[in-house]
């Protein structure tokens, strides 16, 4: 059964005024039930977790632990494979620092990312490579900005320790062949790390089935609150790793023996959640994960595919005339939920500003993917429209109509003497 976007919209008060919100790749709007869950927990059950014997602390601890379970149900695996951190960036940074601190990357090793990756993937692995004396390699992209996965074997070697990449590009919307990449990388015994920020909210994702070892995603991009993200890790790998960040909650016992500090780390995921964690946010994220599972990630995926197809169909005349250029594949079926582009004769920011005046919110700029934009000859950035479950076909049409108007304006401008 197709997703009923009209009825879902009523869950999102921000849409009541007719806003066309197409900036979902940056952050999604929050449904009432997520806000209500956080509010109710805050007013009735909030206390610090794992540290108190009192009733409130027990209630809060139970809710916090259950949140791991509820999020795990969305992405496969068990609750103890879900580590709550601040966001995708921090989760990816944690993955990089964990592997570096545990000497799973060392001098002369290689870490592979792609030219299409978000800075949240590129920069943590660059830092880890610099810190350990490893070499960072980048799989190039083709003219459409999609990594040349067919060349992957050339970039892998027995020196490759890590392969990190995005599941769905935050610029082109292109979907990576994760299972194949993981298979090839594992042949070299490399650890596979997935940036799932743009996939978990939008399609069915099972990290175990995909064959990845570590993965990162954010709560705020899937209807949850800001301030919470997830580092998912294979249980046996997490068990092997010592945390790079110590603190409250990470240990089962600390002793002084013969003048030396001995540390017994807590079991995963607790050893990786240093200090007081994002407790209220975890409750909100769990509620968002439940809602997403109830709606059905497969239905969300189909719905977004329809919206992308509809938008790109309506933009065909502009693309055909050379007035609009896509960042990424020109075939809608090769991208997921995201359509980025430039208009001839108008800066991306001006396009964004004109759309805003029509009540349409999009993102403009380089989308934290500078190398990708340089590679596809869009050094000034692009305009990005990104859909979610509460967007309806009429919104794709409204965007197309506004872009036709903007293109006309640019055309008029260029024809003036």
């Amino acid at each position, binding site marked *: 059964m197709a997703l009923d976007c009209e009825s879902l919209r009523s869950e999102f008060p921000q849409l009541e005024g007719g806003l066309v919100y197409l900036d979902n790749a940056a952050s999604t709007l929050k449904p009432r039930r997520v806000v209500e869950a956080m509010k109710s927990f805050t007013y009735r059950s909030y206390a610090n977790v794992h540290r108190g014997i009192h009733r409130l602390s027990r209630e809060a601890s139970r809710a916090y632990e259950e949140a791991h379970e509820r999020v795990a149900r969305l992405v496969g695996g068990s609750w103890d494979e879900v580590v709550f951190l601040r966001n995708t960036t921090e989760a990816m940074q944690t993955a990089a620092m964990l592997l570096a601190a545990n000497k799973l990357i060392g001098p002369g090793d290689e870490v592979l990312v792609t030219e299409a990756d978000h800075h949240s993937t590129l920069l943590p692995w660059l830092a880890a490579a610099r810190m350990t004396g490893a070499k960072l390699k980048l799989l190039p992209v083709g003219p459409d900005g999609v990594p040349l996965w067919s060349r992957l074997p050339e970039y892998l070697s027995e020196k490759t320790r890590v392969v990190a990449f995005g599941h769905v590009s935050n610029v082109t919307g292109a979907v990576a062949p994760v299972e194949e990449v993981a298979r090839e990388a594992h042949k070299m015994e490399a650890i596979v790390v997935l940036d799932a920020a743009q996939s978990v909210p939008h399609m069915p994702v099972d990290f175990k089935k995909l064959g990845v070892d570590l993965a990162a995603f954010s709560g705020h991009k899937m209807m949850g609150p800001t301030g919470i993200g997830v580092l998912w890790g294979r249980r046996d790998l997490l068990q092997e790793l010592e945390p790079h960040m110590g603190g409250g909650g990470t240990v089962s016992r600390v002793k002084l023996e013969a003048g030396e500090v001995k540390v017994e780390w807590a079991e995963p995921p607790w050893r990786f959640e240093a200090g007081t964690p994002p407790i209220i946010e975890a409750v909100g994220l769990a509620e968002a994960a439940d809602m997403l599972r109830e709606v059905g990630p497969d239905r969300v995926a189909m719905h977004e595919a329809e919206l992308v197809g509809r938008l790109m169909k309506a933009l065909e005349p502009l693309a055909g005339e050379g007035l609009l250029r896509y960042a990424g594949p020109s075939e809608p079926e090769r991208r997921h939920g995201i359509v980025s582009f430039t208009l001839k004769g108008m*800066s991306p*920011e001006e396009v964004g500003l004109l759309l805003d005046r029509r009540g349409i919110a999009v993102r403009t700029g380089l989308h934290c993917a500078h190398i990708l934009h340089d590679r596809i000859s869009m050094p000034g950035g692009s305009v990005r429209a990104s859909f979610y479950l509460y967007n309806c076909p009429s919104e794709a049409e409204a965007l197309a109509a506004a872009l036709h108007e903007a293109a006309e304006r640019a055309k008029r*401008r260029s024809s003036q003497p």
Partner: protein
Amino acid sequence: MARLILVTTQAFESCRDKPQYRLLVELSEARRGEELEIVGEDVVLGFDTLLEILEDEGFDYEILDRDDLLGTYRVLARKRG
């Protein structure tokens, strides 16, 4: 004296600090009677779009300089009221 706002390619200092964004913030925060001198380039923000924004946001304006060929402009805007 009018406050100077640059809407030029040179005004990009980082990917976060967009001149178009800064212009919108300055316009929204301007007080009645306050004057802003806007120096811009079409490649960053089209002249026609700028004038529309000024009208919609409640500014009177005077075009101090406009070069269609170079696509540059200088506009003095005054918040009404």
